[in-house]
């Protein structure tokens, strides 16, 4: 017996139970030894030959990313096969003296830096049987050169991957692009199953929806011989294609908008005022998403990054501008709703208006005469709005701006959105240690001064005027579908807020905007569309010492709005009605099939 000197005061059953434990432990150890005997003695030869010939290689099998489709299921982004250059540490390490020569040779053949190759090789050594991707998207010539020297390049392999293609080269900022995962991204996302060499969305929807789009990579464990030829497959995991995104964008409308903006710098946003669908979103200048799929050509980066016109900025959500006279609709709403002015109240416009001996001019030097709110919107009378703004006071202007969604992010599903700025007296006190002057209120009431809004926010304001005051959260994805096209999830329109506007206020603003387009004296007559009633508001933003920006917002049809548009053209050097309104007209023509 294992134990002889039993303590006398313990009942017998503990010995029996512990004896069972002892037997259990012994049996367990014996079973483990048997298992090892089977592997090492019985199967030993088989394993030894695997270890000697060595053995295995992990061949990655990248999951194709999901597609991006427009609202009518036109393909905006898909994939095509591309070859990558891989280097498998375990295979190269079997001939340690070859490590440096192989890296040098690969560097001279591919034009990559030897340093860079070495670093990737070292980092991959954590998983030495899988290849490090040295270069993606090999061209035929280089592939030929590599294949020719295969014998001098142990560990080298060509991996069948895929890369992004853009059948319709549109909306670069919205779609974004994919690129190889950076070290920083890898550190942050390793938890979520990302690995070195993975392609991940870097900006735009590709980045925001990367988890949805990326699918799940597969791979094969294969046995290889000493020359690197594959002998048999030990294990295989099929990749799972990523899910697709059906966008709210209308590719045809987007095309028109991009053509209209042309070589200007600026942004256009079109929303569906009934639900917040983003129908078009343009920012120019832009870049070609295809420049970043696969190998980025030399000079592309530096050219884009050095461009003073910042082509990487998505001006629709990251460009902030004073809204100019477009803001008068907000001033009007605030003035009417707070009772600061009545619909009948008239301001006298003589072309110039003094406060504390400072002159403030109307854009129309001869003046508009006695003018009430509806006509003041139509003709964009500055002096009416100076006085209405002074009566409304800065706090109410601020509050109504915030209710219309200005000064905060809309929450659109894109990265890097700016909030803009809605000033009030406290803000100025805090940031500039200066009191708020009446002159500040005057500038604010016509959308100049400290106010900063994005084109997307302007479009949201236009949509809210169109639909009776509802702020829908703008969104670009309407649903997620499986690779087979089945519905995975649907994006429900989300309300961000509701501006309480009386029917009277709405009617006055909408009529003022409609007449701005329809009337001979209206500022926006260039946006007229035959057979469709259009409401619009122009804006010209002083930008000293540079040329003025031109702005325009519109919605149509007035009685049953389906589309709201905001246009901003930087340094247009002319009025919103001249430069921006025709762009919106072209889009409305296209949208209503004229």
């Amino acid at each position: 017996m294992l134990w002889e000197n039993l303590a006398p005061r313990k009942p017998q059953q503990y010995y029996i139970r512990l004896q069972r434990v002892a037997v259990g432990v012994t049996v367990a150890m014996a079973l483990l030894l048997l298992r090892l005997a089977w592997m090492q003695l019985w199967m030993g030869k088989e394993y030894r030959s695997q270890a000697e010939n060595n053995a295995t290689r992990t061949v990655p099998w990248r999951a194709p990313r999901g597609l991006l489709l427009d609202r009518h299921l036109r393909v905006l982004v898909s994939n095509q096969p591309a070859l990558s250059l891989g280097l498998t540490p375990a295979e190269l390490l079997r001939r340690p003296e070859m490590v440096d020569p192989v890296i040098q040779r690969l560097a001279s053949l591919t034009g990559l830096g030897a340093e860079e190759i070495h670093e990737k090789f070292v980092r991959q050594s954590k998983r030495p049987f899988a290849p490090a991707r040295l270069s993606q998207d090999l061209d035929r010539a280089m592939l030929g050169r590599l294949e020719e020297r295969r014998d001098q390049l142990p560990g080298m392999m060509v991996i069948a991957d895929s890369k992004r293609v853009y059948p319709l080269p549109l909306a670069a900022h919205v779609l974004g692009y994919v690129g190889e995962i950076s070290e920083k991204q890898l550190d942050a996302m390793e938890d979520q199953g990302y690995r070195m060499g993975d392609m991940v969305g870097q900006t735009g929807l590709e980045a925001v929806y990367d988890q949805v789009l990326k699918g799940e990579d597969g791979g094969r464990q294969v046995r290889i011989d000493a020359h690197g030829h594959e002998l048999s497959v030990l294990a295989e995991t099929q990749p799972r294609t990523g899910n697709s995104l059906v966008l709210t964008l209308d590719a045809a409308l987007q095309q028109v908008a991009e053509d209209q903006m042309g070589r200007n710098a600026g942004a256009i946003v079109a929303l569906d005022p009934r639900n917040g669908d983003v129908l078009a979103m343009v920012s120019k200048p832009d870049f070609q998403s295809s420049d970043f799929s696969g190998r980025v050509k030399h000079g592309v980066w530096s050219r884009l990054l050095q461009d003073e016109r910042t082509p990487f900025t998505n001006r629709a959500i990251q460009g902030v501008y004073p809204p100019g006279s477009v803001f008068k609709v907000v001033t009007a709403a605030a003035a009417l709703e707070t009772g600061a002015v009545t619909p009948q109240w008239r301001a006298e416009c003589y072309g110039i208006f003094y406060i504390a001996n400072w002159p403030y001019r109307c854009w129309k030097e001869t003046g508009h005469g006695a003018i009430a709110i509806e006509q003041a919107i139509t003709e964009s009378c500055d002096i009416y709005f100076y006085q209405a703004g002074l009566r409304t006071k800065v706090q109410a202007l601020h509050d109504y701006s915030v209710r219309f969604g200005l000064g905060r992010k809309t929450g659109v599903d894109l990265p890097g959105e700016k909030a803009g700025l809605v000033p009030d007296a406290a803000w100025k006190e805090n940031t500039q240690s200066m009191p708020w002057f009446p002159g500040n209120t005057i500038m604010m009431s016509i959308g100049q001064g400290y106010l900063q809004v994005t084109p997307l926010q302007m479009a949201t304001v236009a949509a809210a005027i169109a639909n009776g005051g509802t702020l829908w959260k703008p969104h670009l994805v309407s649903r997620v579908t499986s690779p087979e096209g089945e519905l995975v999830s649907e994006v429900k329109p989300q309300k961000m807020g509701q501006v309480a506007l009386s029917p009277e206020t709405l009617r006055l603003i909408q009529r003022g905007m409609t007449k701005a387009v329809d009337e001979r004296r209206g500022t926006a007559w260039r946006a007229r569309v035959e057979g469709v009633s259009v409401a619009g508001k122009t804006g010209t933003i002083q930008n000293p010492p540079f040329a003025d920006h031109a702005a325009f917002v519109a919605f149509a049809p007035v009685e049953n709005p389906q589309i709201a548009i905001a246009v901003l053209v930087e340094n247009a050097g002319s009025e919103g009605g001249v430069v921006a309104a025709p762009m919106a007209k072209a889009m409305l023509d296209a949208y209503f099939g004229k």
Partner: protein
Amino acid sequence: MRIWDSWRRFDLALFGTAMLLAVVGLVLVYSASHHSNALGHLVWKQLLWLAMGTLMLSFFFIVDYQSLVHGAYLFYGAVLLLLVLLVLFGRQSTGGSARWFNLGLFYVQPSELAKLALILAMTRWVSEHDREIKTFWGLLPPLGLMGLMMGLILKQPDLGTALVLFPVAFVILLVAGARLWHLGLILFMGLASTPLLWHFLKDYQRRRWISFIQPESDALGAGYNAIQSGIAIGSGGFFGKGFLQGTQSQLNFVPMHHTDFIFSVLAEEWGWLGCAVVLGLYLALLLQAVKISVSSKDLRGTLLGSGVVAMLTTQVIFNVGMTSGVLPVTGITLPLLSYGGSSVVTVMICLGILLNIRRESSGA
């Protein structure tokens, strides 16, 4: 002097067996790390851990285990708090799960402490309620102690440690006299309710479970380790390839081969013979531990000893099982052989407690 008296009752056989295993561990850690500049100093570090472990062992040899059991709930509570803090704040990308606290000088892995805390708390509860646990409902409080801790450890997620808690609790309860079929029924109900739990898991957590249950589905991750480790072990043959001669281990083909997969180095370089010697040493150690549990002067010592036996046995079975490809890869260390401070120190503390139980019983 009393302290001198107690050292005369120091069980040299148990300590000696453990030290033999520790020496084997040092040899293997050297073999697994000598070629790498980054890992070259691991043997010295491991030696440092062993020294620190021996200090802890001496401490727990001297301090009466009665007072340990007395303070068990406090300790249990403290570890529980640590685990909660870890879940809340410890998000780090160390292997994808938050298991470590950085204390500046070194890391502390609370789930190692959890095993100890559970053994002590279970011992206290069960020894004070040894009649109640013979009923079905009486089992629920001690199993609650286990479940709470296990839940928090699973949240990290550290499947390996969570799985070790199971046998520890069950063996303590069985030795104390719980009915086998009661425990079986509870185990069955636990398994039956897993589909419900599945519902609450996040996507990446589910994936981790799937690759845990079905490693072939992850040929690039866990399955890869198992394949490589299998080749290393199998190619060792009867005598092994010799010290520093294991190609699989030397070329870094088996990942984590100085920690979780250290056994594959042993099997490749020292063959079946080496494995038999090491498993024999483990068996000797464990049987001595069982003997100490039996001859303890009271129920507390018996239960404490059984818990330690269960913990060490489970770790050996799980670790060797996973390196040799019969059990899923879960990240369990091999006691005294695997490189790593938390693991070494925990095992040494357990041995100290065993020596303490032995001292008390031989003094009677």
